């Protein structure tokens, strides 16, 4: 049986060729489509309505969540943090004929997610066995650079007063890398771009910021064991990125001791 995604909300029923489905999560579907000209790519995030929810509640939740995401992105773009720009938005969703869905159209980021970059790097390190001192140093230098870049972007995000809420290596992209099957060691230059603000919120509390970093640290530990030991360079990049960064880093020590749920709610 093949999976059929829910019908597209208007105006995307007119789109030719139709948007292509890239991924889906519990709450949203992500498509690739175009904006303003047929050759300008764009990412379309659709939050379909949930038939099992009461229609009024469904509309409110969908609206609230897509707006939260859009507001965070618009704010970050204005602050110069590297995130996809918001191109267009419809938070109402069409309620009438049931093919509902609020949607968010975003700038297309060409590149690779950091998870894939590290997977390739780890595969490369594994199959090339023992590297000579010089090559090893070159490889590690690249990783340290990328780690500092990640720290800098997360710092910029926190400086702007936004918490990502789901920092993993799948939600970080490296702009400009080609997706071609890389045999050798992957490139690690380019801007780090934060994506997927579906769980983002606005906050300037150091606890929330520290938890954001802690989640990222754990994500590294569980998905990239070889790269984990370089995580300190993320914190190094973070350190200098805004004024209160050292307070957040101090708080991170506490969070490590107890886990991310201090409030014990939820």
């Amino acid at each position, binding site marked *: 049986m093949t999976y059929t995604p829910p019908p597209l909300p208007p105006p995307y029923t007119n789109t030719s060729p139709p948007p292509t489905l890239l991924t889906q999560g519990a709450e949203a579907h992500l498509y690739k489509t175009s904006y303003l000209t047929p050759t300008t790519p764009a990412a379309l995030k659709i939050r379909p309505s949930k038939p099992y929810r009461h229609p009024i509640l469904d509309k409110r939740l969908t609206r609230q969540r897509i707006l939260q995401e859009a*507001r965070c992105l*618009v704010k970050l*773009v204005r602050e110069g943090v590297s995130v996809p720009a918001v191109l267009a938005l419809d938070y109402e969703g069409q309620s009438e004929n049931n093919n509902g869905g609020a949607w968010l159209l975003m700038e297309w980021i060409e590149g690779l997610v950091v998870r894939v970059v590290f997977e390739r790097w780890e595969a490369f390190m594994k199959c090339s066995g023992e590297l000579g001192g010089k090559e090893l140093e070159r490889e590690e230098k690249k990783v340290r650079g990328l780690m500092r870049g990640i720290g800098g972007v997360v710092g910029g995000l926190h400086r702007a007063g936004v918490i990502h809420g789901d920092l993993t290596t799948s939600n970080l992209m490296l702009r400009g890398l080609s997706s071609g099957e890389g045999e050798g060691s992957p490139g690690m230059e380019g801007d780090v771009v934060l994506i997927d603000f579906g769980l983002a919120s606005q906050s300037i509390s150091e606890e929330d910021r520290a938890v954001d970093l802690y989640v990222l640290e754990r994500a590294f530990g569980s998905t990239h064991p070889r790269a984990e030991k370089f995580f300190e360079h993320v914190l190094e990049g973070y350190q200098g990125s805004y004024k209160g960064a050292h307070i957040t880093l101090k708080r991170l020590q506490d969070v490590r001791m107890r886990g991310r749920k201090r409030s014990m709610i939820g």
Partner: protein
Amino acid sequence: MTSSLESIQLPHLPASLPIHVALYRDVQNAPFLRQQLISGNADFEYAFIDASSVLSRTHALSAVFRAVNDYLNERLKSRNVHSEIVFSFSPTNNIADSFRKFGISDSTKDLLVVKVSTAPEITHESVAAHLAQSVEGTPAPFNDETLSRIADITKIKKAYKLGSLNVAPAGQTNGANDSGKKLLENSLLGAIAIRGAT
């Protein structure tokens, strides 16, 4: 003269709704055109935009896209899709204010005209013919190069309350300025997209 009118089919919008856009420089009869809007002359149902408030082609078409989408969903806040296009440039919900900031004024010299084919009799030819006899100005291509010569960056930043945004002043068109312009453009698109979300 008809060659100055560009007809655009925007992705996602129905093929039956092409957008017609024309840019004029050195317009001589702005007070007359504005008067037609005020008196509600149906022959002059256009979006007349002061081009000095327009940063780029993408900026203008984003406002058009939002207005036409709201039109298709029967969510217009103003009288028709053409007034809605002017309103869609605005980051706020104040319609009168949006016309003051983005619409034609008596002193407008550079004018962007947008018309949506909301009825089958509105065609490239009919719009081109009517504009040719109504607008006293010099047709110019609707592209970023021309718009960047017209755009008043200070005015645009003020209208969108982006005073602190780090963008080099107008007039400079070197490579280092491109990222600044992109940042400004992206900020405008975001403001247009989330307008009305309180």
